[in-house]
């Protein structure tokens, strides 16, 4: 296996950074009532995604696999989140979601490209790559579900508290029922992917003879448990709305904690 790979940031990376920043500012302006900024905001989200994808492709050509390490996977995760957001935006008005998603994608991309390469494991087998790819995809889908859940909670709060003059209310975003349904569907799709990733990760770790009782593995199991509870409770007891949104956010927070621990571990070696 190859050792640590350090590749300079591509021009596409900088284009993506600028586009993410601009899209965030424009979406904020839209939310503040400047409706005319919406087409420009959408255009910059598209530019950010294209540039981001180009950057991933460019790194691939340079021999850096998008799931070659947790650090690389973060960049890939941001790409999935942006893509998913863009896809969902074609159906619903998700300005509020964009205000959350764009900065998150930007931070993930910056973490992926600008943090030190650190000690990289040299024993990354095909099993390891598949595990990282699937885990990234699963967490990416959970991230989107969480973004929708966050919007749900904000809009639900505005309606419950009769805050009719807030930016969230005025933006006339996606209806609550649709947000809840879409977040649930995403969890439905992400859960099996994440489950397979978890099983493969356990096998891989066992093969390497590593200790399974590490905090990141424990948190990954917690993530799985939270989303499993969510799906079962919805099916049996009809959990939805605020309760489901809170659980989705909690599950995603656990998944994010796993990523952060991995990243820190790799950086400090």
């Amino acid at each position: 296996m190859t050792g640590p790979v350090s590749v300079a940031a591509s021009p596409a990376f900088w284009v993506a950074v600028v586009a993410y920043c601009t899209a965030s500012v424009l979406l904020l302006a839209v939310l503040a009532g400047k409706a005319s900024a919406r087409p420009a905001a959408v255009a910059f989200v598209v530019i950010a995604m294209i540039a981001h994808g180009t950057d991933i492709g460019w790194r691939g050509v340079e021999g850096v696999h998008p799931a070659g390490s947790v650090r690389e996977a973060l960049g890939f995760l941001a790409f999935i989140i942006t893509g998913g957001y863009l896809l969902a935006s074609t159906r619903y008005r998700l300005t509020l979601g964009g205000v959350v998603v764009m900065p998150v994608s930007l931070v993930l991309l910056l973490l992926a490209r600008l943090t030190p390469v650190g000690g990289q494991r040299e024993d990354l087998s095909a099993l390891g790559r598949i595990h990282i790819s699937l885990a990234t995809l699963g967490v990416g889908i959970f991230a989107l579900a969480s973004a929708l859940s966050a919007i749900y909670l904000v809009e639900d709060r505005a309606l419950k508290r009769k805050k009719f003059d807030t930016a969230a209310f005025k933006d006339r975003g996606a209806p609550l029922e649709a947000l809840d349904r879409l977040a649930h569907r995403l969890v439905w799709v992400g859960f099996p992917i994440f489950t397979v990733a978890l099983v493969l990760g356990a096998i891989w770790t066992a093969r390497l003879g590593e200790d399974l009782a590490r905090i990141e593995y424990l948190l990954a199991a917690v993530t799985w448990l939270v989303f499993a509870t969510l799906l079962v409770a919805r099916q049996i007891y009809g959990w939805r709305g605020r309760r489901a949104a809170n659980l989705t956010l909690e599950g995603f927070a656990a998944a994010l904690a796993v990523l952060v621990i991995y990243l820190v571990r790799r950086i400090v070696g």
Partner: protein
Amino acid sequence: MSELFVVGLSWRTAKVAVREKLAFREDEITDTLNALIRELPVSEALLISTCNRVEVYGVAKRDADVPASVRTWLAQRKSAKLAELNDALYERRGPAAIRHVFAVASSLDSLVVGEAQILGQLKDAYALSGTAGTSGPVLSRAVERAFGVAKRVRTETTIARGAANVSSVAVELAGRVFGDLAGKSVLVVGAGKMSSLAARHLYTNGAQRIIVTNRSPEKAERLADEIEGTAAPWADLEKLLAGADVVISSTGAREPVLTRAMFKRVAKARKYKPMMIIDIAVPRDAEPQIQDIDGVYLFDIDDLDKVVAANLAERAKAAEHAGRIVEHEAGQFEHWLRTQGVVPTIRALRDKFAQIADAEVHKALDQLARKELTRDQYREQLQRVVQLVINKLLHQPTTVLRSSEKEQGELRAGVLADLFALEISDHPAEELAEHPAGDDTTERKAQA
């Protein structure tokens, strides 16, 4: 020059007692327009009569004070005393009239800014003026442009966004929770007038069915018939609630009929699927604590009024932007209107010039066809043709200029210098001798 004008009154200037004195029925309008054109120096006319405004738009034939005559004429036509109407009547002329019709079409002058009804009413009025044969080029252009401006205002601003009455707010809030109302069911609790209006509004916006329940079954039946719903017994209230997505409550009960305990059971039975309660009763029908239950959204009459107020404030903000659009469009229309006076002259001038040029080119082509010419001869011939055309074009103005009295001649010379951006020489006699344009001898020589 003909001038666009408007004379009328609206909710801004007249109370309903005055507005009704001047109101026209739809079947009166065609005759009224024809009489107006016949009896006053007006070449084009349109009359709009709604519950909030009565206005006559027209094009005055000459510079006389036509709007003042229209005031008197309207009062006579409706057998009203002019003195009673005069304070309420307003008039706008020229650019102000254009701005006014654009603002009216864009619903900036409406009682509820942003409402869509006025545009339809203006379209109907325009159609009636077409039927009466009283809409001409200026009025047609102005009104059609007003439709365009209204469309632009609705597209580019948020003026039409947000409901502006309680029934529409119910639909808007339901949209926030459910999005599409298709397939949703509405339960009307109590047989109040307001709840039936709101239910009907939800139904026309896609709700699948309406069920009415009331302590008095007869009243429930009657209301159900009125709003194409189904009546259900009051005893089944809790079961009915479990099957409803939107509940509109308006009973006359002194104590709440929709309790928190009831809704806890209902929410569980619905597996916490979202539901919305619109309580328009005073005293309220629903316990406020229902709001705490997950997935249940409760709005009382004060909440609905708050939404209306927020939406109207939003519309007022958008109206500023819309005003700028109207101003800009009115400016462009004024420019178009100003150019209309000179268009026939420009057209005639172009036609005359083209005629002269065509005639000379044809003559020259005939002559050229009969001769074998060298390249130099060809060029010489071409120059002669151009010279001929110039001479013919300048012959008439030169003759007129020469035969003019001193003062008039100077005035005409000034206009010509201005139109052709001429640099006037200090020695006109010498210049003319060198370039004898307009002198027929050149033309005769060339033809020979």
